[in-house]
């Protein structure tokens, strides 16, 4: 097991290096001059532009720029933004917000998704099941942008003006409460998918021979569902959740913008826009790392859920 983990982690190194090179190249290839973009629509003094370009090594060929970046990175220096803020400081603050948001979303997703799916699977074919299926379909078809604005207006603004201060509208200044509404909005579509996945997976398991045996044996229903069926049905769900973590972290641009959360999704968006290679590559590197670790954890969980699976 330990050797397996170490092997997986070593495999991650070329993946990370490849990812940084690729992203660096992609940002490099974006059209437009970063210094000109910094100046907005007014022309900066050409002399100052030249000096800034020199300062950020923008006149050097791609491979030289990448080398500067890579050597800096191994020294723990991820570079600076065009505003002169060290990328490491920037990322530390942004990831704090994003992790809070992603974990809130993931927990909501797991609890609501698995709960509803379980309920639907056990009530298969009945009105409750149909209702859950229909509502997940609705949830899947509404874009995050819409759920975000609507929930913000209804649960944030309207409730607050009615005197009930339950969900903060924007920002992270209210502690964990700040993340509830955005977490739900972010998890929305995934909740729907997870519900459907749980329902199908569990319904299928419930039809298996060993479940019939367990029922025939006279085991209580709770035990049959909980211990025998759910555990086996969890494997595809854990895979889904693991893969979703990465998406929730890097792809929350819309949710972060609507709820004014200073997370990495937003930062990534604006940095791509400003062509801040150092920031983009730094964030993507960490995200790749998150994906790799999440995958590893998922694989290890398989062994916990199904003792037949062993890693050597």
């Amino acid at each position, binding site marked *: 097991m330990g050797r397996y983990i170490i092997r997986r982690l070593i495999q991650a190194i070329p993946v990370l290096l490849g990812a940084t090179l690729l992203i660096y190249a992609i940002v490099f290839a974006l059209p437009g001059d970063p210094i000109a973009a910094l100046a907005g629509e*007014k022309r900066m003094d050409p002399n100052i532009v030249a000096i800034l370009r020199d300062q950020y090594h923008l006149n050097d060929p791609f491979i030289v720029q990448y080398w500067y970046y890579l050597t800096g990175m191994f020294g723990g220096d991820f570079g600076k933004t065009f505003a002169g803020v060290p990328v490491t400081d920037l990322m530390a603050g942004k990831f704090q*917000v994003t992790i809070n948001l992603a974990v809130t979303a993931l927990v909501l997703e797991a609890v609501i998704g698995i709960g509803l799916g379980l309920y639907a699977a056990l009530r298969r074919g009945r009105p409750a099941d149909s209702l859950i299926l229909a509502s997940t379909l609705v949830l899947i078809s509404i874009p995050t942008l819409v759920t975000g604005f609507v929930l*913000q207006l209804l649960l944030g603004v309207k409730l607050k003006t009615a005197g009930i201060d339950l969900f903060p509208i*924007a920002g992270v200044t209210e502690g964990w409460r700040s993340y509830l509404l955005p977490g739900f909005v972010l998890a929305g579509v995934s909740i729907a998918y997870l519900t459907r996945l749980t329902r199908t997976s569990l319904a299928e398991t419930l039809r298996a021979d060993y479940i019939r045996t367990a029922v025939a044996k006279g085991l209580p229903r709770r035990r049959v569902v909980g211990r025998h069926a759910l555990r086996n049905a969890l494997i595809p769900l854990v895979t889904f959740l693991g893969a979703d973590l990465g998406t929730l972290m890097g792809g929350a641009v819309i949710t972060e*913008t609507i*709820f004014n959360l200073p997370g990495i999704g937003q930062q990534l968006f604006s940095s791509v826009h400003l062509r801040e290679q150092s920031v983009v590559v730094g964030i993507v590197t960490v995200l790749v790392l998150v994906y790799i670790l999440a995958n590893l954890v998922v694989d290890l969980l398989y062994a916990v859920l199904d003792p037949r699976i062993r890693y050597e």
Partner: protein
Amino acid sequence: MRVTNGARIIAGTALLALGLTACGSESSTGGGSAAGGDQPVRMELGEPQKLFYPGDTTESEGAEVLAAVFAPLVKYDENKQVINDVAESIKTTDNKVWTIKIKPGYTWHNGEPLIAQNYVDAWNYAANQDNAQGANGFFSRVEGWADLNPGEGKTVSAKGMKGLKAVDDTTFKVTLSKPYSQFKTMLGYTAFYPLPKAAFGPDGKITDAYAKQPIGQGYFKLDKPYNKGTDQTIDLTRYDKFPGTKPKFDKLQFKLYTSPETAFNDLVAGNLDVHDSLPPSAISRAKTELGERYIDTADAGVGYIGFPLQYNKIYSNVKVREAISMAIDRKTIAETVFSGTRAPADDFINPLLDGYRQGACAVCNYDPAKAKEQYAAAGGPKTLELGYNTDGPHKEWIEAVANNLRANLGVQVTVKPFEKFASILDDLDKKSYTGMFRMGWAIDYPSAENYLTPVFSTVAIKTGSNYAGWSNKQFDELLAKGDAAPTQEEGLKYYQQADDILIKDLPYIPVYFYRTNAAFSQHVKGVKINLLNQVDWTKVEKVA
């Protein structure tokens, strides 16, 4: 009990989540939603582009913060006139040598007195190419600026500009390389703030610590260093030793938003007090829900359609340009497309400033019949191209203009989106794009001249924003006469004559003037937006 393993994992994740979010709540700043006597006045702000270097803050958000921390030499009154603020007197006899005397009693937030040398230090710093400050060009009129800007790769040997000298602790003298009557008007701008000794490190550069928590001489001081990218609020406390008119409340908080819609929701819910950049989508709600707490005033910005005169000959006939101008229905664009957040343009000079003449641009009136006739008579091209940048709110109005041209001129119009404004300029330079383009201008200092020199003068082709590449000798001469005029009024006369040439020759088509759409909460009153598009905090009061 094997089953519970799964449950344990979920429960564990949940606990972890709570733990993490709890950490988050501890480290977060600000808060304090409970209404009370100590609650700050909260103002909406976009994230400042840079840390707080006065000489490198050329955008509105950073400037808004600095305007609360620094007191300018001059400010602008309600009649659009320049009046002294920190300056006791600003004297000149020839528009070339200016003697500036500062009022006594001003101190920096660290207790040191404000002296004339602070201005000299700050301006020399901003003007030195080694410091790569964005506002460097503002000092190009000062004698000796060239010595500090010998060009990239060359070493700066001069210590400072020779035209800038502190006479004594309260007086300094600025010598310009050429007479410039509008110099006094410039002095209210961010780039002309002074800097204390404490700003500079041992290497003579502004320190990081200072740029995060600038020490100013204005009526507010920053409570703590600003961590760009992480902090969601910038908190300020009134500086009680400030000798001028102080605000009537003691705490000010800038709340950083990425979406103006979100900020508006926060204002409606009572979590925000002042919002000065309402998006078009919020206008109708603001009017109905806020009533008198909605503000709609002129803003100094102008939006144009530009012609690539330098790059493409098909637009060289002025009759064609006039026809295109007359074919644009500015009123509908301003009122419908922009929901009233713009006003139809009828001059190159904005109505917010002295020098604007209503209806000055006759060909800015919508006249489709005449447009069609004149376009055909002048043999205008059958296909037109119209470029815009997608990183601003331009798609809708550019499409509207394109539709106007299609319908009224009977031509084919291709609308071409560009990723950002800089890409349009790049492609124009490379001649891979030769069509018309959208263009905008926001003033740096409130003078009519600022709509002319930086955008249309011949020198601005290289160093300014003259992207049309238009050049007119008579226009340049009139600007020079205005710059040398002994009084503001006389100067204005020449600038208006220069404006007339623009209207006659139409290198750009003015399409709309910006409006400032602001709103404030029930917790405050007296919110006024000044000529620089900033809130005048001395007039704001908290409502108990």
